[in-house]
């Protein structure tokens, strides 16, 4: 069963902490995405990556960075967590030959206190 695995289902962090959200896929997909989901706002794209070490900003990149050192892993980094980053974070991946065939992870619900 193919998977996108997000390392934490729930996470509580303090304001100012550096936070790492990890995402691993086992499908050899080239493209990986980080979305943020908030009630009433839907899903908004933070960053995406189309290859190792390659990244592109999405619609709301401020306060975030990403890392893709290996094809299967795409990390989202909150350099200094703030309360307005409390949200649900969804990772997804797709293959080049089926770029709309999204496989999503189960999400990480992050609370910053």
């Amino acid at each position, binding site marked *: 069963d193919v998977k996108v695995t997000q390392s934490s289902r729930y996470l509580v962090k303090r304001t100012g902490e550096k936070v790492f959200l990890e995402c691993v896929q086992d499908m050899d997909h080239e*493209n990986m995405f980080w979305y943020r989901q908030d009630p009433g706002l*839907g899903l908004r*794209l933070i960053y*995406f990556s189309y290859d190792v070490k390659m990244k592109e900003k*999405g619609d709301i990149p401020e306060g975030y960075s990403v890392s893709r050192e290996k094809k299967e892993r795409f990390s989202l980094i909150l350099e200094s967590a703030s309360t307005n980053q409390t949200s*649900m974070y969804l990772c997804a991946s*797709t293959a080049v030959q089926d770029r*709309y*065939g*999204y496989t999503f992870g189960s999400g990480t619900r992050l609370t910053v206190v």
Partner: protein
Amino acid sequence: AQTVTQSQPEMSVQEAETVTLSCTYDTSENNYYLFWYKQPPSRQMILVIRQEAYKQQNATENRFSVNFQKAAKSFSLKISDSQLGDTAMYFCAMPDRGSTLGRLYFGRGTQLTVWP
């Protein structure tokens, strides 16, 4: 950027009944894809149905079908014979114009509750 609009934040339907979720979008493209995703309480996003704009026939997947009105830029999802397991958040989505990388724009979602 494209816009995808879901005007119904919440809907409810009785089991076995039919419900329609609305979605409108804006694009200047002639050929594109449209999607409906389902997010149950487990939070795992699942593709429900996909429509290609150049196909005149409305897509159907078992109890799920779409009413695609290209001129009106409308893409509604009809769920027939609703089941308790259909309770979920539903998102309409379409690809970024000109993107070869597969990024999607999502609507704000419609929370559907199916009650016994």
